[in-house]
């Protein structure tokens, strides 16, 4: 949990806050080490990032203040400039990233910057729509507040773009459960929610997305930290599930199974959609051994950290991912999050025993 001193520092520096959470699969994140590495700096500069950082120790929490500029890929566009904070607390395997710049700066400058700076050891905490629902329910129970949804967007299955299909008037908020029911009826995953958490004496507005981005006003920082903590713990347990899955000499292979709860692969078009989705996965290369009749078997390599794993559909309702000689938890987590968002959300992710 963030130290009191750190909260004060952040509160005095931020207005409307955009935030996200990153977590490390093993031990505590060492930001000093990442920021000091010359090869990382050089790599980031080659990607168009320019930055300067300062460090402040606030009790058990260390705050890094980073001024960042991200050059656009096309000259006609404006560079993205802004300031953000990274708050790392002793004993936590996750850390928080906060900025009072806009969401575009967070998504297109800050998140790629941290991802490239810390990958493959650190990944973003993302959620499934079911986890998002649990997080919100848990958060509202902790605050002893009612949850009302002002707006919500859903994302279609099999890579369809987000659609604001579940749209509500601000003055007529609805319950979280009814939003989820409507999403199911419309074959959508709840992707983003604009919420009003109404307690006895006060209320809090917060926007939260499956991709792990959260927006809230600075007055709600204290409450938002509770939300961060809940998400951080989910990321921590996912890392425990995905770490140490590489093949070890003289040991059986360990596979991860994604279950969809429905026989989606009984239709060949969904197998081909899976193949297409995997082909579009960023920072990767792939090899197809068998492609789609009646199953898919392929290898995927994460070109950033050289993690590799085989992928095959299993029965008509699951995907089996089997790590090879090298496979970090971050690479697995990144890929699984990608499939959840761009192909279809798994209802269960587990080790195949």
């Amino acid at each position, binding site marked *: 949990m963030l130290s009191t001193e750190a909260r004060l520092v952040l509160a005095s520096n931020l207005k409307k806050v955009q935030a996200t959470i990153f977590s490390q699969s093993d031990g505590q994140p060492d930001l000093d080490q990442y920021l000091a590495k010359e090869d990382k700096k050089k790599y980031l500069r080659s990607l168009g990032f320019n930055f300067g950082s300062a460090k402040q120790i606030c009790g058990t929490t260390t705050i890094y203040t980073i001024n960042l500029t991200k050059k656009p890929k096309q000259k006609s566009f404006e560079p993205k400039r802004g300031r953000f904070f990274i708050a790392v607390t002793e004993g936590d395997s996750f850390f928080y990233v906060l900025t009072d710049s806009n969401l575009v700066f967070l998504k297109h400058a800050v998140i790629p910057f941290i991802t490239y700076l810390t990958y493959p050891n650190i990944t973003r905490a993302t959620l499934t729509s079911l986890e998002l629902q649990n997080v919100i329910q848990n958060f509202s129970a902790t605050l002893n507040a009612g949850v009302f949804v002002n707006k919500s967007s859903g994302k279609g299955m099999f890579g369809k773009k987000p659609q604001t299909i579940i749209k509500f008037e601000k003055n007529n908020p609805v319950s979280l459960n009814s939003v989820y029911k409507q999403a199911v009826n419309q074959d959508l995953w709840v992707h983003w929610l604009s919420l009003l958490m109404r307690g006895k004496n006060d209320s809090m507005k917060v926007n939260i997305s499956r991709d792990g981005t959260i927006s809230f006003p600075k007055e709600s920082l204290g409450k938002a930290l509770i939300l961060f903590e809940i998400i951080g713990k989910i990321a921590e347990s996912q890392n425990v599930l995905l770490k140490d899955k590489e093949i070890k*000499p003289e040991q059986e292979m360990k596979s991860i*199974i994604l279950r969809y709860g429905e026989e989606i692969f*009984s239709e060949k078009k969904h197998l081909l959609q899976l193949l297409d989705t995997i082909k579009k996965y960023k920072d990767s*290369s*792939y090899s197809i051994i068998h492609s789609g009749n009646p*199953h898919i078997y392929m290898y995927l390599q994460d*070109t950033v950290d050289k993690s590799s794993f085989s992928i095959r559909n299993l029965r008509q309702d699951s995907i089996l991912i089997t790590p090879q*000689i090298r496979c970090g938890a971050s690479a697995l987590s990144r890929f699984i999050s990608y499939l959840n968002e761009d192909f279809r959300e798994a209802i269960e992710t587990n080790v*195949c025993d």
Partner: protein
Amino acid sequence: MPKMSLSEAVSIKAKEMDRYHQQILLCLGLLFFFEKNKSLGMFVGAEIDLKYALNSVQKCVRPDVIIQAWKKDGKLFGIPIEIKLSVDYDIEIKKELNEMKRYDNQLSGWKEFEGLTPDDHVIVYAPNGLDSGKVKRVLEQELKSGNIKFNREFCIWEWQTVTSQKYGKGDVLLIKQIFGDLHGMCDSLNKQLTDGIPIDYESEEFAKKREGAVFTRKKPPKEYMMVWLWTNVLQQSVDSSSNITLDELTKKVNQFYKSELMNNNDGQSFFIKKDWIREAMDWFCKIKLCKESSETCYNIVMNKKIRNISKFICTQVAKKEKLRKINTDTNQMALETFTQGS
């Protein structure tokens, strides 16, 4: 020979990789079935030599799979299986069936089990279900015309992946005896085979076996080996200098990848052969994904941003092979012209 376009050559290479993968599936299917049905027989191994018991010019045969099954009288009989992934023309089938005659001899080298070894064997030819009808037709014609004769029971076991409500919701690997008869030797196995043995290859239990089985003892197509090495092994095994020796690489792959399909009939594990790796590495050098820094040390070129590795490798190898063929043909033509001229 008709000229083959580059895209056709690439497509054939992709099919060859897939066929090797399917052969593994069938071998594992048989292994899986006999592990579950020990009272019927045992899976001895894939690609294990059987010797001719009597003097012969040819010293041994190497079936794709060897099964040993229990007879009604408590003795064992052998089932050497020749798997055929694809066969197109009658003339090709006739040739294949004639080649099966090599199994029609007394064979030794079977696995000893509880003091028993098979005293005889049947012969099994296992084509894909897409080809089994024509194989059966050609066989019946050849037997009727007397062009071919077997002194032992000859069976056709077709195999294919099928989806049918009969076998549940998922796909199954179905192995079915469509020619020949094991009745009298092993009634129960005969009945199961003629009814069709469905193997639930999508079960988690089977899937775990499949993940470990990257090879059988049979040499894989070089492209298959290259794709596997490039995606899963090479870049993960090199030091900061990107160098690796053939010995280091061979040791590494054998440390991590073992499967029951690679066991010999003593249960000893067979190793992924250094020659297979050497061939793949030499081809990496030819297509410039590696540099040979000494005879057995390779420098991996890491800066290649290849999206579709299997396609890239098949295309580059096909291009090199085509170029080599053109050069060979040109040299041959030049030699012929020279010879005629002189």
